[in-house]
């Protein structure tokens, strides 16, 4: 089916992104990160380090947090993927997005999509995490702006859907 030289070697791959079924052609070793950004235009998925250290490219794959820079797209076949673009309900922000906004958890914004998805994954496993659990849950996501405290505040606020007493929020 694919005859042109630049297309040869591509596979047809299908997965769900933010609830929508996608069918596309890609080289099997293309990084999920690149396919999401370039073919599907989901530029909320950021590339930081490209080696699984910084977490900027985090997405949820079948409910599990993964670094999309380390996933060959063929391994996403049949998966259900959620990116930052899929969290809000129409114009209504996800509670984590709102909490990041309210707590000043985002500055330059590069780490923010990954942070929010890592937090989302954490809350799916531990709905009311301790500070240590928040720190661990986000330990694979690097932020060079905020100093993390506002990010931890935001996750705690989203979890409790209220303002945490700031005395609880100092790092141990």
């Amino acid at each position, binding site marked *: 089916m694919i005859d042109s030289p630049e297309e040869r070697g591509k596979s047809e791959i299908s997965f769900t992104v933010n609830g929508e079924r996608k069918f596309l052609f890609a080289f099997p070793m293309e990084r999920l990160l690149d396919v999401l950004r370039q073919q599907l235009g989901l530029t909320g998925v950021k590339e930081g380090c490209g080696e699984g250290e910084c977490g900027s490219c*985090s997405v949820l794959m079948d409910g599990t947090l993964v670094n999309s820079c380390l996933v060959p797209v063929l391994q996403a076949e049949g998966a259900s993927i959620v990116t930052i673009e899929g969290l809000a309900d129409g114009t209504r922000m996800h509670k984590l997005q709102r909490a990041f906004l309210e707590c000043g958890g985002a500055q330059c914004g590069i780490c923010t999509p990954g942070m929010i998805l890592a937090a989302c994954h954490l809350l799916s496993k531990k709905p009311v995490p301790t500070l240590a659990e928040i720190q661990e849950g986000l330990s694979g996501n690097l932020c060079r702006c905020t100093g993390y405290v506002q990010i931890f505040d935001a996750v705690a606020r989203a979890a409790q859907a209220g303002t945490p007493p700031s005395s609880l929020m100092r790092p141990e």
Partner: protein
Amino acid sequence: MRSDPREYELVAPGNLQAVVTLLAESPGAWLPIAGGTDIMVLYGAGNLPARKLVSIWNFPELRHIEVLGNEIRIGAACTYTDIREHKIIAREFPMLAQAAGWTGGIANQNRGTLGGNIVNASPAADSLPALLAYDAELILVSVRGERRLAYAGFHTGYKKTRLAPDELIQSICLPRRFAGYVSHARKVGSRNAQAISKVCIAALARVEEETVEEIHIAVGSVAPVPLRLVETEGIVSGKIVDESLVLLARKTAAAEIRPIDDIRSKAKYRAAVAANLVAEFLHLLNGSKHA
């Protein structure tokens, strides 16, 4: 320089039998890839020599933890998260659960696998000292059948293993006999999450009436392969821990390891830390007699 995906082949035959058949057809030609947390890093940097890869990600037959009466068998493609969340591993093999918890961040724990950690064969791998301390055995599979061998000795040199080109690790077996042992694992690195160890230790012992009846000490990042400190074990075994024994153990451990200078640390620092970690464990045993 980034890799060009057009130059790479990746196939996903979908089950173990098909993969071992493929490996047997042209031994050494295909590189199995599970969660990709090592392979994709090389690929991303343009440093992956293999051009043909075969996916073993998420095979149910490799992602199962089987609890038998005398051992547990961890499927080679079980992730660190699978290991951390397993109650019997947490209870009976706490050093493995701990090592799984300090390997990478959560996203890497969700993809990185125990079998991958073994075949990647980094001397700095976090989970490998625990496997050595727990006397792990490996079940390897190929079209020729299964074979079982001790994990100790699996690594024959830096990044070299006894795995044949047509074989995969199927499972990692841990004998269920360490529940009553004192154990201690520690990673020394620049940062807990993500950072790779400068030195890591997994040690366990059985102490009866103050005497160390059995002791296993395994250390990572101090030699081309993860190392059991058999000489140090030998001088401690059968003895009561006192300060002179700790001193001798420090010296023996320092002589037994072969650390190097690299990007993460210096040989001198590693030797000092390894000796300190051995001493820390022995002091724990010393204290445990009062427990």
